[in-house]
């Protein structure tokens, strides 16, 4: 039980996919122009993540190692297409209009494949579901937060509701891609600053969380010691 809670919680802050793992930057930058879009994309990704994590942890034992990545991609792509069809059929038209062209991008969202390879293939289905939920929730919260910041800064509204009515002309920078980079960068800087300061206060050297740098991943050969 303790392990489940730990797995679930780590995605939200300690190993937040956007702010710590720096995965899935494409939807993070492209889809956070408004709070609604950010939340919608986050929820769609969470659904795919939970589904693919579950299936992959179930089949990981029988998938030949040599072709595991193509098999994972097929599983993920299937889930994404299911989400796409379900959204088209049952979601409000405005949400599908906003997310439609980005849904196929979930297939190549590094978070999904990254969690499949780094977590789901090595843990049992139950833990994998909670990992997907936690990571998805962390992703959704971060995207919604970014969406709120960017939407407010560019047009004075939050979730489509104008908070400052005197905001007549839109401020373009936060709504555009460069603005997204600047805001994400600023949030990362603040987070790292807080972490580093806490580490210094505790008299330790700040090191990134274990298992999250290149050496611990086995998707590609980068970062491996060549012996």
């Amino acid at each position, binding site marked *: 039980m303790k392990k489940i809670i730990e797995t679930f919680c780590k995605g939200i802050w300690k190993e937040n996919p956007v702010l710590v793992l720096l995965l899935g930057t494409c939807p993070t930058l*492209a*889809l956070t*122009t*408004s709070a609604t*879009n950010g939340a919608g994309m986050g929820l769609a990704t969470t659904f795919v993540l939970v589904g693919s994590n579950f299936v992959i942890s179930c089949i990981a*034992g*029988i*998938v*030949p*190692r*040599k*072709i595991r990545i*193509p*098999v994972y991609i*097929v*599983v993920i*792509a*299937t889930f994404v*297409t*299911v989400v796409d*069809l*379900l959204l*088209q*059929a*049952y979601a409000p*038209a405005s949400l599908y209009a*906003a997310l439609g*062209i980005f849904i196929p991008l979930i297939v190549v969202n590094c978070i999904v494949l990254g969690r499949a390879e780094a977590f789901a293939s090595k843990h049992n289905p139950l833990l994998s579901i909670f990992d997907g939920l936690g990571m998805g929730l962390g992703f959704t919260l971060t995207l919604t937060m970014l969406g709120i910041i*960017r*939407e407010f800064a*560019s*047009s004075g*509204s939050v979730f*489509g*509701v*104008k*908070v400052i*009515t005197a905001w007549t002309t*839109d401020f*373009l920078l936060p*709504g*555009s891609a460069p603005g997204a980079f600047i805001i994400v960068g600023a949030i990362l800087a603040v987070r790292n600053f807080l972490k580093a300061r806490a580490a210094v206060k505790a008299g330790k050297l700040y090191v990134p969380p274990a298992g999250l740098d290149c050496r611990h991943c086995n998707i590609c050969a980068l970062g491996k010691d060549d012996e």
Partner: protein
Amino acid sequence: MKIRDNENLVVLGIFLALVSLLSALVLAVVSGVTSQPISAAKKAREAQALRQILPEFDNDINARTLTLKSPAKWPVRVRVARKGGRIVGYAAEAVNPAGYAGAVKMLAGINPDGTIRAILVTEQHETPGLGAELCKRQFSKTIFNLTEPTPDGLPPNKYLDQFNGRKVPAKGWIITKDGGNALYHTGATVTSRAIAKSASEIALTFKKGRKQLSKAFGGVK
């Protein structure tokens, strides 16, 4: 030997094929279940769009369509709206290939005299929050009117409404940046251009195609 460590190409190929087959099966089921709601949602969207841009009508608007060529050689799809047999307006649809990110599809309601009644952008991939805002029709909500009910009718959009009821110049509407007098939005010049161009093409088609229209639908003065 365990299948996990298998390196035989044939076995690997068969495994991958089986996985793909399984996924195809799942997709076939989901697609079968959702195909009806999807087409229903599409139809509902289209019907709502037609209601928004046209005055009240009582004929089956999809019964007859006419495709006209615009001056720039785009096909313009025209349907006629009647009430009690009299023509009350036309619905014209055209796709401008030159949006900022792909095509911009426009649906326009046309008055019987050939002027534009109302415009909707039905499909676009413009920059969210920038170009896309020019194509969107939405009632603005503020914290002060949050609890009030949304008003009926078509939400205003000054970039789309600027052509309503106006006579189209011989060369079409041109945005102020290019020396004309149609509105444009800084930072979304290409989208503004695409909107003005689409509206012009549709209006010019109606100006030049009167004969064809009256032949096809009758009753045009």
